[in-house]
């Protein structure tokens, strides 16, 4: 419990830093932010904007004003669409989360059995083929893979949609709709996950308790999945948390190519169309999300490994 409280305090500090840096995005714009944000706006619109974002106040006061709004769910108004940034993000975020979730699950679903098998058969031909394949996938940028998958599975054979469909029907429709972008993103991740798990698993399989399990006549499957996998998965867990950043980066490009109206496409348009308030809100949400995911991963360590939990409790 004490450990969680300490972690929470650290989390709050990190979130404050993240929020301040996001806030500074607009303040770092050269000249009058109102001129930059709405270059073709009327003086009335610019005056309203200065009032809304409080640029006529001292910096600490501006930050406090902005943070207060953020904490109340007000991320500011986008002055091009005349919509609240939070409204736009509420529409975009679930789509990105679905994509990231699908990609992570897909990557883990393939990487875990492949990593276990590869470790169990370390050095065999099958292990080498598996390694070669995942390294091949790792070396192909996700957007190139998306173009290839789109062409062969979408345009040529029409198995999957080639752009994000506005309407999907049923669970199978959902899986089909998201498959190509999720698979493109998952391809690079599964190589990392599989390799990490394989390495840790090989080390685990050398442990005395594994030898003991074998001598007791436990089946290979039981040894691998019940006794070896859990202690071998810490690096995998760390990588899964950290890779959210890489996935978000890849998702930006994939969302643009696949026309998914998620955070990546929103961010891309916000940058290219100079929607600074929306850009600031997107950066804040993504950064906070990244921090929170890694906080959860940190907590999960102690759930997975009783040694960490007990050590922290003892400390």
């Amino acid at each position, binding site marked *: 419990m004490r450990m969680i409280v300490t972690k929470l305090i650290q989390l709050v500090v990190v979130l404050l830093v993240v929020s301040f840096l996001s806030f500074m995005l607009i303040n770092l714009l050269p000249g009058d932010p109102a001129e930059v944000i709405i*270059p*073709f*706006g*009327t*003086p009335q619109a610019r005056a309203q904007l200065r009032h809304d974002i409080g640029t006529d106040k001292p910096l600490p006061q501006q930050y406090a004003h902005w943070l207060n709004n953020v904490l109340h769910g007000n991320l500011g108004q*986008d002055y*091009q*669409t*005349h*919509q609240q940034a939070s409204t*736009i993000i509420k*529409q*975009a975020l679930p789509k990105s989360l679905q994509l990231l979730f699908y990609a992570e699950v897909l990557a883990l679903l393939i990487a875990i059995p492949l990593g276990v098998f590869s470790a169990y058969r370390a050095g065999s031909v099958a292990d080498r083929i598996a390694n070669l394949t995942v390294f091949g996938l790792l070396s192909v940028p996700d957007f190139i893979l998306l*173009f290839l998958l*789109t*062409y062969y599975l*979408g*345009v040529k054979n*029409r198995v999957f*949609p*080639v*752009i994000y*469909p*506005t309407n999907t029907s049923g669970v199978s429709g959902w899986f089909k709709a998201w498959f190509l972008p999720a698979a493109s993103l998952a391809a690079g991740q599964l190589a990392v996950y599989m390799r990490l798990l394989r390495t840790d698993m090989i080390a685990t399989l050398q442990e005395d308790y594994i030898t003991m399990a074998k001598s007791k006549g436990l089946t290979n499957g039981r040894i691998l999945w019940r006794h070896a996998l859990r202690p071998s998965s810490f690096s995998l867990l760390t990588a899964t948390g950290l890779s959210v950043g890489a996935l978000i980066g890849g998702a930006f490009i994939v969302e*643009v*190519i*696949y*026309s998914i*109206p998620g955070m990546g*496409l*929103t961010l*891309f*348009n916000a*940058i*290219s*169309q*100079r*929607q600074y308030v929306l850009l600031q809100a997107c950066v804040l949400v993504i950064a906070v999300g990244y921090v929170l995911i890694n906080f959860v991963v940190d907590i999960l360590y102690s759930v997975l490994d009783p040694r960490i939990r007990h050590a922290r409790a003892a400390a």
Partner: protein
Amino acid sequence: MQHSARANRWSVRFLASVAALAVVAAACGGGSSNKSGSGSSGSNSGGTPVAGGSITYGLDAESPEGFCDTTAQLAAAGILENLAIFDTLTVPNEKGQMVPYLAQSVTPSPDYKTWTIKVRPNIKFQDGEPLDSNAVKANFEAYRKGPLFGFVFQNIVDERIVDPLTVAVDMKVPWIAFPSFLFGTGRVGIVAPNTLANPTSCSNHPVGTGPYMFKDWVVNDHMTVVKNPNYWRKDSAGRQLPYLDQITFRPIIDPVSRLNALKAGQLDLMMTDNGDTIFQARQAVNQGTLADVENQQSAEIGYTMLRVNKPPFDDQTAREAAAYAADRDELNQITNHGLNTLTNTPFAPDVFGYVKEPRQPPIKFDLNKAKQLVSQYKAAHGGKFEFTLSSTNDPTTIKLAQLLQSQWQAAGMTVHLRSADQGTLINQALGGDFQATLWRNHPGADPDTQYVWWHSGSPVNFGSINDPQIDHDLDEGRSATDPNTRKADYEDLQKVFGQKLYNLWSWYALWAFISKPTVHGINGPDLPDGGGKQGLVASVHPMVGLWVSK
């Protein structure tokens, strides 16, 4: 019209944004050997239109500012969306002449200082408001007071209600081409007066008299319009327009994804000005799997805009050197598969007063001549011929800029590149912060619509052209009632550009509307008063005539 100096600045900035829509650069567009002009192919020859059905239309951009015609900056995609919702008072016919559309008549006084606009009776906006003289006046006021069109309509002194359907518009000076400005490349739609008072509502829930009614808009995802059951038009066979029940617009930024989606059947129709995409689409058209309509009528011009009051391009020798050193055929081949039609004038062939070769002999790529001119310039300017070429930061335009840089450097010039997003590039142009920049602009059938870009008194004369002959041609061309005088003015204007090389013209932009073979009606139905179909203007085609065959 009472505008403060500050108000004028927004107008200037906003007008500049119109150019922004075109800035994308000289890289895009083009012409074809077999489909120049307002050509049509399979997609428009589908027999008898049938009512019903829906289509998904892939666009090249989102319109983040929404759809309020009087205030929103709209790129080509947004204009198409708005043409589903709004009608304009006039439209061009296939000959490029403006004819009444929402208006029943648009009549000048003998001296062209007053235009009388009478709208058709019994037309209602989609919210039930009547289209009458009050609505037209309210729209004029909104356009004139707004930052986007205030500068364009600065020649208007006042608009007066004559009767319930008629408005008279008084001008400062005679304005021959006023009906062209009422179309405004499809941008001057008549907006429901109730929505004009609320910018947010006007942007996010547009209401017009057009063939389709706004249904919903999810930013970056889609915008849907549904059939307006009370639309005022029927086709020449008496069938109610529009034919389709619904159009869903999808912004798909990447042109490859857009074409793939069309090929995979997720889209029914798409727009593009990307040379690679048009090239690929033509292969599918030849195989019969897709159809397309390509347009370069009243086309925009891709060109290098020069700042002619700053070194080095304040010196004609430098401008000539740059012109002779640019191998436009090579640029065209590499950036657009050679699809573009090169031009030596700022006007498309259908534009009033067009002259094919305003300079005799025309300038052609000549590296030796360019090198001589560079040496000549360097000798007179301390041994330096150095400048920066600005461009937008999309890959196609950057490629074009790099190619131009290599060609100019081969002639002995030192060329630096600078790229920026479109908004920044426009701000740089407004502030005079450039020496040469890749640009695209000047669509429209009447040359008077280009007045503000080149007249010495205009704040959006980005290149700072200050030529009394051009001013004279533009002023007289705007007001001369004798068509021959106007024609001579605009011919002369092109000759002055040809001689002085204030801008280095490259090619006409080519827009393609690519579709499944079952989609028809891109050129629209016959005009309401007969006389053929509506003419296409650059990236603009009517939405009212779209239909799908079974």
